[in-house]
Structure formats: structure tokens, C-alpha cells
């Protein structure tokens, strides 16, 4: 019964999701009941090695992080397409293999382009 089996499978996944929330929630609640409370403005200020905090923390960051994230999205989707292919490629034979290699090659050309453009050079 495939339909019922799927319901049981994802019942487990859902139960473990709730279990995880329960685990963290319980730990934080027990700690909340036991711990002391003694806040003051200095203690609650942003930690900057004991110095007086300068400026905002929403600073500009290196654009390379953003470029790496863009590249990751492309290749992660490629990996997603690879998974169903990996399970069935023996039945599909050499044609599907060549097609998948063509797909990978096209995206690798993109990787080489990004490389030549200096995306991986951190300045």
C-alpha cells in the first residue's frame, strides 16, 4: 500500500519535528525556571570586547559572499536534478548519461567564467 506507507513515513518526520521543538522548548523552560535574573544596561549592551559600542552592526560586507551564494543556488539545483537521474541512469543507458554530462558541462563553463572573472578572489 504505497499511499498509506507515505502517510506513515511523513508521520514520523512530522513527529520528530515536534519532538525537536519540544526538546529545545523544555530545555529553555527548565533553565527559565531555575536561572537568576539580574539585567542592567551595561550587561545587556552589544559585546565589543568591553569597549563602548561604536556604530551599527548592520555593516557592509564583502560582495564575494553574495556571488558565492548565487553560484551555490545554480549548482544546488543541478545537484537536485542529478538525484533522480542517479537512481535510474542504469536503465536509461548511455543516452541519458551523455545528456546529463552535457548539462553538467554547460554549468561548469559558467563556473570557469566566474573563476576567470575573479569571483573567488577575496579582496
Amino acid at each position, binding site marked *: 500500500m504505497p499511499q498509506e506507507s507515505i*502517510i*506513515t*513515513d511523513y*508521520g*514520523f*518526520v512530522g*513527529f*520528530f*519535528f515536534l*519532538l*525537536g*521543538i519540544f*526538546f*529545545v522548548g523544555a*530545555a*529553555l523552560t*527548565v*533553565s527559565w525556571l*531555575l*536561572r*537568576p*535574573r539580574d*539585567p542592567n*544596561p551595561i*550587561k*545587556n*549592551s*552589544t*559585546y*565589543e*570586547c568591553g569597549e563602548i559600542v561604536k556604530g551599527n*552592526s*548592520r*555593516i557592509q*560586507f564583502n560582495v*564575494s*559572499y553574495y556571488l*558565492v*551564494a548565487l553560484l*551555490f543556488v545554480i*549548482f*544546488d539545483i543541478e*545537484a537536485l536534478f*542529478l*538525484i533522480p537521474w*542517479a*537512481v535510474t*541512469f*542504469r536503465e536509461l*543507458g548511455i543516452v541519458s*548519461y551523455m545528456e*546529463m*554530462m552535457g548539462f*553538467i558541462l554547460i554549468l561548469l563553463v559558467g*563556473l570557469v567564467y566566474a*573563476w576567470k572573472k575573479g*569571483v*573567488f*578572489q*577575496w579582496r
Partner: protein
Amino acid sequence: MFTFLNLIFMVMAGVMVLGFIAVSAMFLIWWERKVSAHIQNRYGPMRVGWHGALQSVADVIKLLLKEDIRPTKADAWVWWLAPFFAVVPSVMAFVVIPFSKELIPRDLNIGVLYIMAITSVCVIGIFMAGWGSNNKYSLLGGMRAAAQIISYELPLILSMITVVMVANSLSMQKIVEAQSRCWFIFHPNLALAGLIYIIAATAEVNRTPFDIPEAESELVAGFHTEYSGMKFAMFFLGEYTNVFIVSAIATTLFLGGWKGPLLPPIAWFLIKTYGIITFLMWVRWTFPRLRVDQLMGFAWKFLTPVSFLNLAIVGLLLLK
């Protein structure tokens, strides 16, 4: 149908997994301190219990009783939710980890895909912690962690796909069964995939030589600088649970899972998994830390192309 028997098994599995996560994390923290101490020619914890064996218990009690400092400038919701995102995916990943033939909460038919998807959620928790703290160190640590984890995700996924190609299944138990004759690490097509997996997994769990997200000499404590008490403990727990999970996946995919002679299967599984963890600790306390540009360069210029090449060669050899 979702039977009563299923429900009982589900609850039992859940309770056992929670107990296992807590005990395993406490053991691993003690073990890491002992291993690092002996590598550095000192004793490590010695006072609480036999060779400091109860040190972690004492630490948990201490962390429970610690004050929770909330930075006024922090982004309250994001800051508060981040510990959940750090631990809940780790708990969920245990659904498909096969401790033995029977001891697996549920053998999903897409096990490998499920574990790839669920373990990559952890990066969101780390980035939420970095962003929500509104602290410069945390933000830098979070940015670095996000960039590093997503970069090494690709070689990791590709090496796992190579195993799927050889085993011809995404189910964890079927992959273990496929290794009845020969562990995949000794399979001529998969030795390189195993090496790529262990390198990428070290980076995934932010351990030295890939620990720039919390490089203590430059970023104080990285993304969890502003966390204290139990919230900090949750990040610690999540980190050590992730170390266990990547090692358990390595055991399942490359070292034959719970299969082995004489000893019961669960003993074999735990011996192999903790063996890999000890290897990761040995690496951690032996190698120096890399710079951020070296790290990204290694992932994108070397590891990713090599993984694709490995995938292409394995596919060609399997088709013949």
C-alpha cells in the same frame, strides 16, 4: 494505515533518540576535551568522576543555572528562534539513521535526499544567530558560516550521489545491504568519493581546519558571541549532534553501516561512527586554521570540479 503499533514504535523511537542525542553530545564533549588534552600532552578534565567522566554533567547543570543575557539591540524574534533552528534539524535527521537492521525510526525510500535536505537547514539557524545578535563579530561569523557551509555542500552532495549511483537506491538500509560484499570505501569507484565526503563533512560541521565561522582569535566566538546559558548550550548540542550525524552518514554510506562479524550490529555501528568522530578530532587538534579565501578557493576551484569529474568517471564505469 497509521496503526497503533506504528504509534507506539514512533514514540519509543523518539524518546530513545532524544536520550541518545543528550548522552552522545555529553560524551563527545568530554571525549573531545580528553583527546585534545592528550594530543597537547596534558591531562584535560580530571576532577569530576573517573578521569573527569562526569565533567559534562556538571557543565550541563552549570549552564542550566546561568543567567540568560539578552542584548537590548538584538533582533528579538530572530535571536530567540535561532537555537531552535540549530537543534530541530539535527533531531529530524535521526529519522533515517540506521543503527541496525531494526533500529531505525523509519527507513524512508528517499533517505539520502531527506538527510541532505534536512541537515542543510542548520545553516539558517547559524545565520539567524549571526544576524539577529546585531553584533559585528556575530554578523561576520554568520556570513562566513553561510558561505562556507553552502560552498562545501556541493562536494558533499555530489559524493553522496556517487554512492547512490553505485547502490542504485536512496534508502539508507538498501545502501547498507549493497555493501554486504565490500565496503564502499574499498570499492575502486568510490574511494575518492569517500575522501571528498570526509573533507566536505569536516567543513560542514565547522571544525578545524575549516572553523573560520568561530575563529576565536579574530571573532571572539563567531555567530554565538551574544548567547549565554541554555541558548548557548543548544548551539553546542546542535554542533556535536551534527558531528555525530555526518559521521553516521559516513559509516552508512562508506563503511558498511551496521554490518560486521561477531559483535551485534549496533555495536559495529557505534564503533565505526565514534571511530570517524575520533579521526575528526585528531584532524582538528593537528591542523592549523585556513584563511577565508583559501577555504573558498579550495571548495570551488578544486573540490567541486574534482567531484564532478569523479561522478562522470563512476557513471561511465557503471554503464560498461
